[in-house]
């Protein structure tokens, strides 16, 4: 056993050496903010391309936009110091800011950026295309008045307010045209370069992005609003909720925002942590394919609306993620109507099904991304609808599978989620009240209502009318009409829960205020000394 003991001794020695090695990790440094999240969906940091929430959180700090929205939904100046509106166009005066490169921010950069958005023609451009701006027309719609003034013409599809809210979106970020033009390859508008580099005037600059690993942002000391308090922001990919919870507990990260309900709840009782429940203005939705033989019938859709236990699911599954609500306008928005009388009523639901001619029920599939909390939500809906005689088979998939099925109308039931374009009725109903052409040939896969084959000419026209109504009082009336019409139609896009993004902050973090559109700025965030 002599040799053997020696081997064991060496093994033990290596083990001891490792375990007693200097433990260098401690609380995060005071001048660096560390955020733990899932970066899995971040595919690009090109501001005119990325629309994914986690990418927006990064882009919000690398770039400025002409205007911004506050956490409570007000429009405030950002690169523009002010604007005037003559009913036909919006004129914005730029402040004296510079890009990180040292180049001044000019009207040319604004024109370049917004033109670039339409030219790239990806998801983000739909926000502007829908209101009458296009690659062909944009040159005549945006004008350089002088190096520090830009004028944007209004179309007949948008009000000044509607345009301003769109200018505050991440896709409207202003890029350094001089810098980006240096990196255009094969007419790609600099996309290949800008995916992994930053050319903005925001409070931070991109030091490094390794997909699914880490994003490092360095402070832009020359930022027009003053140097940020944090020297560096580190966003670390932590896809596993329980691991993120441990890292928060240990003080290795300061903010965690991809936690499951149960992990999140463990912080409720801890005094050195704060939970923020950021309202998004968006919804978890039950999309019903109106092209389906059963779901085409409004009575069936109403039966489903009466067949779901919203309150029970809110309590047991959604927790901090959602609040039961069946009109796609958050409860606290101005002019929001009270909830319709949809609640779990098995008898009434069965009666509606019988009236529709399906007394014995039928079977449907329910597609969902296998992700918290949607997968649990699907199971609860399955159980709930089972009680009224609708047999639901759940089909899980990853994001690309489910979105592909959604885009091609290849589903019976599906669980998507939405965000509010603007913090008002029009903005939150944008996805729910527009479907200009429901024909299959229209192939309008970018349209939320089209994907459910939900033909709503009346509601579409009403939404259109509302979006250009200049009179606030009349607009308020139209807001109420839109919501009422939505309920009366027994929607194929049934909002289930108002969507919140909960996040946990270490008590050391001060000045962090989660933004409804994921445009949270970090320049004023500070950190207390570690205890």
């Amino acid at each position, binding site marked *: 056993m002599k040799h053997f003991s020696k081997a064991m001794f060496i093994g033990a020695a290596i083990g001891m050496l490792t375990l007693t090695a200097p433990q260098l990790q401690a609380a995060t440094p005071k001048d660096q903010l560390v955020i733990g999240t899932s970066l899995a969906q971040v595919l690009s940091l090109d501001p005119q391309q990325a629309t994914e929430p986690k990418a927006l959180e990064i882009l919000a700090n690398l770039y400025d936009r002409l205007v911004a929205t506050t956490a409570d939904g007000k429009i405030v100046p950002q690169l523009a110091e002010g604007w005037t509106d003559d009913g036909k166009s919006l004129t914005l005066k730029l402040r004296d800011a510079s890009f990180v490169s040292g180049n001044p921010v000019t009207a040319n950069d604004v024109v370049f950026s917004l033109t670039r958005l339409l030219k790239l023609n990806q998801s983000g451009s739909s926000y502007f295309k829908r209101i009458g701006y296009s690659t062909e027309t944009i040159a005549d719609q945006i004008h350089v008045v002088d190096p520090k003034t830009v004028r944007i013409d209004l179309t007949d599809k948008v009000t000044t307010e509607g345009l301003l809210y769109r200018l505050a979106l991440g896709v409207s970020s202003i890029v350094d045209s001089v810098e980006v033009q240096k990196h255009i390859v094969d007419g790609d508008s600099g996309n290949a370069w800008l995916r992994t580099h930053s050319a903005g005037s925001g409070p931070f600059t991109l030091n490094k992005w390794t997909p699914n690993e880490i994003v*490092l942002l360095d402070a832009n000391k020359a930022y027009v609003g003053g140097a940020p308090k944090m020297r560096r922001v580190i966003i670390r990919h932590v896809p*596993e909720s329980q691991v993120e919870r441990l890292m928060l507990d240990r003080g290795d990260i300061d903010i965690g925002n991809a936690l499951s309900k149960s992990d999140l709840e463990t912080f409720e009782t801890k005094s050195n942590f704060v939970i923020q429940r950021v309202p998004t203005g968006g919804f978890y939705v039950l999309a019903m394919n109106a092209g389906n033989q059963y779901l085409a019938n409004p009575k069936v859709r109403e039966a489903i609306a009466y067949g779901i236990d919203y309150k029970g699911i809110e309590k047991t599954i959604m927790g901090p993620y959602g609040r039961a609500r069946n009109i796609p306008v958050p409860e606290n928005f101005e002019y929001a109507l009270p909830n319709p009388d949809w609640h779990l009523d098995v008898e009434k639901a069965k009666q509606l099904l019988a009236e529709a001619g399906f007394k014995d029920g039928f079977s449907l599939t329910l597609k969902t991304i296998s992700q918290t909390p949607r997968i649990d939500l699907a199971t609860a809906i399955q159980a709930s609808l089972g009680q009224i005689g609708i047999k639901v088979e759940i089909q899980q998939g990853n994001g690309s599978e489910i979105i592909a099925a959604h885009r091609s109308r290849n589903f019976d039931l599906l669980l998507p989620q939405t965000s509010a374009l603007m913090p008002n009725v029009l903005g939150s109903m944008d996805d729910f009240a527009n479907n200009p052409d429901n024909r299959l040939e229209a192939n309008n896969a970018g349209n939320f209502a089209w994907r459910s084959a939900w033909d709503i000419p009346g509601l579409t026209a009403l939404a259109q009318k509302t979006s250009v109504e200049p009179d606030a009082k009349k607009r308020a009336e139209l807001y109420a009409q839109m919501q009422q019409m939505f309920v009366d139609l027994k929607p194929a896009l049934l909002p289930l829960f108002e969507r919140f993004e909960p996040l946990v902050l270490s008590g050391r973090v001060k000045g962090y205020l989660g933004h409804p559109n994921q445009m949270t700025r970090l320049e004023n965030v500070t950190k207390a000394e570690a205890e």
Partner: protein
Amino acid sequence: MKELSVAEFGRRIAHLIVSLFILLCVTFVIGRVLPADPVGAIVGELADPAAYAAMRQRLGLDLPLYEQFFIYLKGFVHGDFGTAILTGNPVSADLAQAFPATFELATFAVIISTFVGVPLGLVAALFRDRLIDKIARVVALVGHSIPVFWFGIVGLVVFYAGLNWVGGPGRVDVYYEGIVTPRTGLLLVDSLLQGETDIFWNALSHIILPAFILAYAAVAYITRMTRSFTLEQLSQDYVIAARAKGVSPAGTIIGHVLPNIAVQLITILAISYGGLLEGAVVTEIVFSWPGIGQYMTNALMIGDMNAILAATIIVGFFFMFLNFLADIAYAVFDPRTREAAR
């Protein structure tokens, strides 16, 4: 190596290439028939059909399947695995970054599992049905039956969050990110090469737990196999003769049994090594380890087929290559195999 004929060696190489080609075909077909939508992942959910169609064409996904395969094969032969959607980089560049992280983890794990599994198996065989054997069997059973995922979380709760003995998820603490310039891609090696001892210790404290967790399943397998190889040898005449001559149990094991089971051990270690590379997928998710497992998982989530295909082939190739080496080792070190081959 002199004993292994050139023809035999060539035959095994050809076998390796054919297996690789079959793997390539199967993975390609599975990849293309999956209902994943890489185009949607790039252009975004709200993009209009024209933008969608243009991107589809750019990726070559509008071509017939055989044409896509042919193009892929042509690129593959030239070492071009295409471009990854996730990163926009050539897949080969991504893999060159991700693979060393996995390689480092798997190598660390195979070292641990060898140093634990082989002695445990030997001792268990030597003291058959005694307490140590029973312990070894329990260790093997537990390692075999409990999911790596669960082990990972428990390990983190106890050793990272509770006892503060090891570093947390990731290869290194966030404050050390970007300091070491990758040369080999192996952080432990690179940090030492650049004289960054602080980072070396930090990286070591980060790798130790995932490596142990990953190694555990392999320990179970190695222990079980070593035990059964040893038991087989212990009943042989030459062992009985050695024991009769008064050689101590340890002397018998080290002097007689070990050399005789060495070739078999090499094979199971090679298989374990390949298995560890595969097993790293789950471990990497739990430990936010930026290796090939995590790369593949994320690629799968967005339907990034070029990335999935190349990563699968790399892992598959490594697995086959290890088997090939084990095969060669067999042929070189075990004369009986050579005789049979002839």
